[in-house]
C-alpha cells in the first residue's frame, strides 16, 4: 500500500504549532485583562456595596461618614453633562457636516482635520488649564457649572467631530448622487438623506464622548470645582461639584470609612457609564439592522 498523501508533513506540523501558540497567547492576554477588571470591580463592590443605600444617594456630603452622600455631586454631574451636551453636540455635528460635505479638499482643510485628530489625544489636564485661563479668568465665569461645561465641551469636541465625520463618510456617495440627480440642493441632500443615515453613528460617538466627560476629573480640579458642596446648583452660574471630584476628595481622607464611601461613589459612576455605553451599543445595533 502506498503512503497516505494526506498525512501531515513536518513543515505543516511546525506551522500549525506556531498558529496554536499564537492563539493561546492571545487568549491568555484577553483573560488577564478581564481578570484585572474583575478584581477591580470585586474590590470596589466589597468595599462600597454596604454603604450604597437611599440615604447615600440623597444626602449632602458630611464630615460624619454615616451621614455623607452624593446628592450634590450627582446633581452637579447631571448639570455638567447636560450643559456639555448642549454646547458640544450641535457644534461638533455642524463642524463634521462642514468638513465632510462642504469644505474644499485643500491644504487648509487637511490642516484642520489633522489638528482635530491631534486634539483628541491631548491630555485632559491641558484642557483644564485652558478652561481656567479662558472661561474662569478671562470671561469671569468663576468656578461655575457653565465654566466646567464649556471646558468639558472643548475636551469632547474633537471626539464627537471625528465620530460624526466617520458616520457621515460611511454614507455611500451613490445615495448623494441619486438625490442630486433629482434636483436637490446640497442642504436637501444632507438633511433628507445623509444625516438620517449617519445619525446612529453620530449618536454612538456622542454617548461615548459624554461618558468620557462624566468620568473626567483633572480638568474640573484645574478649574477649581469645589470638593465640599452642601447645596444644589440652581443655575448655570452656580458653583458645583461632580461625582469624580467627590470620589477623589473621599479617597484623600485618612479615615477608612471615607475610602469605603469613595468605593460606593465609584459603583454609582460605573453604573451610569454602563447604562450609557449599553445605550450606544443598542443604537448602533438598531442602526445596522435598518
Amino acid at each position, binding site marked *: 500500500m502506498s503512503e497516505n498523501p494526506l498525512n501531515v508533513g513536518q513543515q505543516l506540523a511546525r506551522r500549525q504549532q506556531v498558529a496554536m501558540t499564537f492563539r493561546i497567547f492571545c487568549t491568555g492576554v484577553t483573560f488577564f485583562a478581564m481578570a484585572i477588571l474583575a478584581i477591580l470591580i470585586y474590590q470596589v463592590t466589597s468595599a462600597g456595596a454596604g454603604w450604597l443605600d437611599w440615604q447615600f444617594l440623597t444626602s449632602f456630603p458630611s464630615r460624619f461618614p454615616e451621614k455623607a452622600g452624593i446628592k450634590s455631586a450627582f446633581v452637579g454631574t447631571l448639570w455638567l453633562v447636560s450643559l456639555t451636551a448642549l454646547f458640544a453636540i450641535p457644534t461638533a455635528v455642524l463642524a463634521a457636516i462642514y468638513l465632510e460635505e462642504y469644505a474644499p479638499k485643500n491644504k487648509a482643510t487637511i490642516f484642520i482635520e489633522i489638528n482635530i485628530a491631534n486634539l483628541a489625544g491631548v491630555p485632559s489636564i491641558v484642557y483644564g488649564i485652558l478652561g481656567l485661563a479662558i472661561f474662569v479668568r478671562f470671561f469671569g465665569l468663576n468656578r461655575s457649572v457653565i465654566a466646567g461645561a464649556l471646558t468639558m465641551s472643548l475636551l469632547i469636541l474633537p471626539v464627537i467631530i471625528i465620530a460624526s465625520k466617520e458616520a457621515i463618510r460611511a454614507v*455611500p456617495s*451613490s*445615495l448623494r*448622487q441619486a438625490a442630486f*440627480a*433629482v*434636483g436637490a440642493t446640497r442642504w436637501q441632500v444632507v438633511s433628507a438623506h445623509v444625516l438620517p443615515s449617519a445619525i446612529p453613528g453620530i449618536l454612538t460617538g456622542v454617548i461615548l464622548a459624554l461618558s468620557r466627560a462624566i468620568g473626567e476629573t483633572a480638568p474640573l480640579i484645574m478649574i477649581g470645582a469645589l470638593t465640599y458642596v452642601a447645596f444644589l446648583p440652581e443655575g448655570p452660574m452656580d458653583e458645583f461639584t461632580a461625582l469624580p471630584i467627590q470620589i477623589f476628595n473621599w479617597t484623600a481622607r485618612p479615615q477608612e470609612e471615607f475610602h469605603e464611601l469613595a468605593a460606593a461613589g465609584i459603583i454609582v459612576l460605573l453604573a451610569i457609564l454602563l447604562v450609557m455605553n449599553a445605550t450606544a451599543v443598542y443604537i448602533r445595533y438598531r442602526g445596522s439592522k*435598518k
Partner: protein
Amino acid sequence: MSKPILQTNGLTISYSGNPAVRNVTLPIPEKKITAIIGPSGCGKSTLLRSFNRMNDFVDGVTHDGKILYREHDLYASNVDPVEVRLRIGMVFQKANPFPKSIFRNVAWGPEINGMEGDINHRVETALTQAALWDEVSDRLGDSALNLSGGQQQRLCIARALAMEPEVILMDEPCSALDPVSTAHIEDLLFILKEKYTIVIVTHNMQQAARVSDYTAFMEMGNLVEYGETDQVFTRPKQKRTEEYVTGRFG
C-alpha cells in the same frame, strides 16, 4: 436630422489636467436614443456625466469647449446646476434607491422642487411608465431595498421620470442586471423614447445595436465615429470602429 437637444462643441474634460474626453463634438438628437460605446476608460461615462453637471462633484475636473442645451451653454456662470438636473435626469450604473419607501423614492424629487399637481397621481404615472406599477401598487409603503435588483433599477428610472425631464442619461443601467431584467429595461426604452431623449452609455454592443437610433464610438477620450446605429454597426467608416463592433478588440 432635427435640431439636437444637446450638442457638445470641441469639448475637452480633464481630471487635474489629464484629459479624459478630448475635443468631442457630438449632437444628441431629440426624442431619440443615442448610445455611447467604447472600451473601459474611454471617457464615455465622464462625457455622460458632464451633460447634467454631475462632474461638478469630482474635485479637479475642468471643462473646455461648450455643451449646449437647446443652444444655451450648460456651463455658463449664470446657470444653476440644480436647474440643469431638473431638465436632465439620470439613472446610474448600480441601482441606488433611497433607503425609504417605494412611494417616497418617487415622490421626493417632485416634492422638494415644489412641483404642482397630485403627488399620488404623479407617482402612479411614473411607476407605470417605468413598467413597475403592477408589481408594487399594493405595497408602495414597503422599503425600496426589499425590491429585486431589476425592480430597483426600474424604480430609479421611475424616480427620474417623475421629474418630467426632457433628457434621461443612463450610465450602463443594465450592467448589474440579469438578462430578463435587462430585456425588461430595453423594452422600456422603446416606449420612453416617444416622450424623452435618452443617452445611454453601455459596454454591451448588442444592447447598443438593439435599442439605439444613433451610436457614438469613443476610444481614449476621442470620438472615433458617430452616426446612425445601422450605419455604425454594418458599414463603419473607421477601421477602429469596425474592429471594435466586430469584437476584434475591447
